[in-house]
């Protein structure tokens, strides 16, 4: 795990360490089973096509979970995620599997973020961030925002 991030360690417009993800049909199966989302939109071709989405799409909530990890990785164990928000603006399509264990070539998604504001509220050293998931074409399919509280080098949270 990287060193703990402190409020003083970044600027009001710093970038958040990017996090790459590869959505595969297998990951979607894992997600469906892990949270109990059995919507055929995410695993059945004809159903997804009938819904007007072409092929099965990545669960929006899975992309949300990626973005939560983007933040929790950045803020470290002492950081607190206070608010989180994201919108599912565009569909993402998983890579297929090549063998039982390996996925085929295809796009890689990047979770990215940028601090938009640093401020202190009472005792809390806060930062607001814009965050998003970028698909393989660089399109922001899942934009969002987060508010975090970080430890300060001047005093513990």
């Amino acid at each position, binding site marked *: *795990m990287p060193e703990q991030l402190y409020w003083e360690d970044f600027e009001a417009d710093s970038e958040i360490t990017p996090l790459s*993800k590869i959505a595969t049909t297998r*990951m979607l199966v*894992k*997600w469906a*089973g*892990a*949270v*109990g*989302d*059995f*919507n055929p939109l995410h695993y059945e071709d004809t159903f997804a096509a009938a*819904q*007007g989405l072409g092929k099965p799409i990545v669960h*929006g*909530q*899975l992309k*949300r*979970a*990626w973005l*939560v*990890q983007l933040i*929790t*990785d950045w803020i470290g*164990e*002492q950081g*607190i*995620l*206070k*608010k*989180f*928000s*994201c*919108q*599912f603006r565009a569909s993402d399509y998983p890579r297929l599997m090549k063998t039982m264990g390996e996925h085929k070539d295809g796009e890689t998604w990047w979770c990215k973020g940028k601090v938009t504001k640093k401020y202190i509220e009472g005792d809390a050293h806060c930062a607001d961030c814009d965050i998003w998931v970028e698909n393989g074409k660089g399109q922001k399919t899942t934009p*969002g925002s987060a508010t975090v509280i970080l430890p300060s080098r001047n005093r513990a949270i």
Partner: protein
Amino acid sequence: MIPEEVAKFIGKSGDTVIYEVERGAIKKYADAVDDPNPVYWDEEYARNSRYGSIIAPPGFFGWPAKWSRPGPTIIYLAELSEEVAAALAEAGYSRGLGAGIDFEFFCPVRAGDTLAATPRVIDIYERQGKTETLIIWIVETTYINQNGDLVAKARTTGINR
């Protein structure tokens, strides 16, 4: 104008559902996301962390203690949300998609916690899409743990057409 059979849900609260947060479920979730953070996986690491025990990734609230068989399509979807979706389908807006989610987190969710989840329809309104009318609906779920602590609030937005 949104149909009356749909509008009547605005402000309506649904039954409280009890969720159980289990270590194994946390691991399956973290595995699905591909998040190796040891606070989700490693008992000893978590014990020595600020949390004192394994926690759930923010946004994971475990599984309902029980649900009907064969169960709803989305197990964690509140009955209230299913009723709204059914009313929307009846009114001709049967194609629904999740549009987004907003969380406010108040304290960690730990393995072993029991959460009481209560949903409420915050709003339902119309929006003109490019080629069709869209109906936007927002459900807020409040999660309270076994100690009576407010743990989180989640607002889910759906778009139906």
